[in-house]
């Protein structure tokens, strides 16, 4: 009995020690990752494309507002056959080319 208790205390002590590792916690990493941002920008791009309006001022809107409020670089470019979405906030880098 004593042996079991001491061994388990020892193991628990090791587990406690392991948890001391310095770094970001999972929730901080989740907060850091701009999942919603990227989904939002993609969604917005498809939305204004389907509305068939002049895309240039809207792209400037998205780029300016994202830099101003979120400190992230966005670059959206259109050609007749492809659409490029580029997002970079220094930690996460996202680049998508959509063939139309």
């Amino acid at each position: 009995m004593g042996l079991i208790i001491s061994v388990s205390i020892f193991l628990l002590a090791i587990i406690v020690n392991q948890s001391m590792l310095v770094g970001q916690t999972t929730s901080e990493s989740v907060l850091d990752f701009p999942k919603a941002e990227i989904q939002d920008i993609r969604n917005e791009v498809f939305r204004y494309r389907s509305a068939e309006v002049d895309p240039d001022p809207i792209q400037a809107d998205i780029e300016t507002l994202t830099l101003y409020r979120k400190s992230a670089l966005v670059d959206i470019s259109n050609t007749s056959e492809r659409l490029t979405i580029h997002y970079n906030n220094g930690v996460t880098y996202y680049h998508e080319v959509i063939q139309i």
Partner: protein
Amino acid sequence: MTKKSKKIHKESGVSETIGYIILFGIMTTGIALVTLYGYPVLLNEQANANVKNMERNMIALQSDVKSLNFKNVPYRENTLQISGGVFKVEKFSTDTKYFKVINETGNYQLIPAASFPGNEFHPGQLLFISEKGDILVGLQNGAVVKREQGGSTMLSEPRWFIDSSGSDKILVLIFTQIDSDADYAKSGIGILQMSSEQPVEVSYLLSSASPIRIEYHDTESDYFSAWRNYFNTFSATTDSTVTIPSVKKVIMKFYKVKILGL
């Protein structure tokens, strides 16, 4: 069973007292050994654990500062357990720790003098000074830096980056300044209250791609090597200055985090 054991048990030569003394002696020696060698080790571990705990706290605080800066949350607070040292708020002042950003073509200072006198950006810091004396852990300009025995490392980096996906190279520098109304210092459990203020945003579209020099000035070589090593991720350097070649656009944002209480 009982019959058999009764037969074997012959205790005429056994002294309980001697057995007791032997056991007691072993135990006492064990306790003495643990006290002599084990306890200092444990105390040392505790001091290390305190520093580790504070590093952890600083990274959590960095996460809060990121929320204030990049997610535009107006106010944050975080509970800190500070043991084995003192946590203090060093608000920005005209001290010896500052940054400069210079366009090498024509030697233009890029940090606006209107907001930052002398074109110098003084970040201030949230600082933990360990009881052991030689260990400092600081949250400075959005980075977590640690100084130990004359050397320093960066535990978590600020959000500076170069974007060269397009035809032009864009350099984005995010600065964070610590401000407060009072000089706070604390040991024990404290609640750090922070609020964000309107950032200053500056962006330069250079007429031609130019080398940009970033300088970090520091005395006592506090966080000298931490920043030098970080600058090396942009371009090779041997001191705390780095020159990033052919930058077309520079975007700088200067955030201010105000400490309301501790």
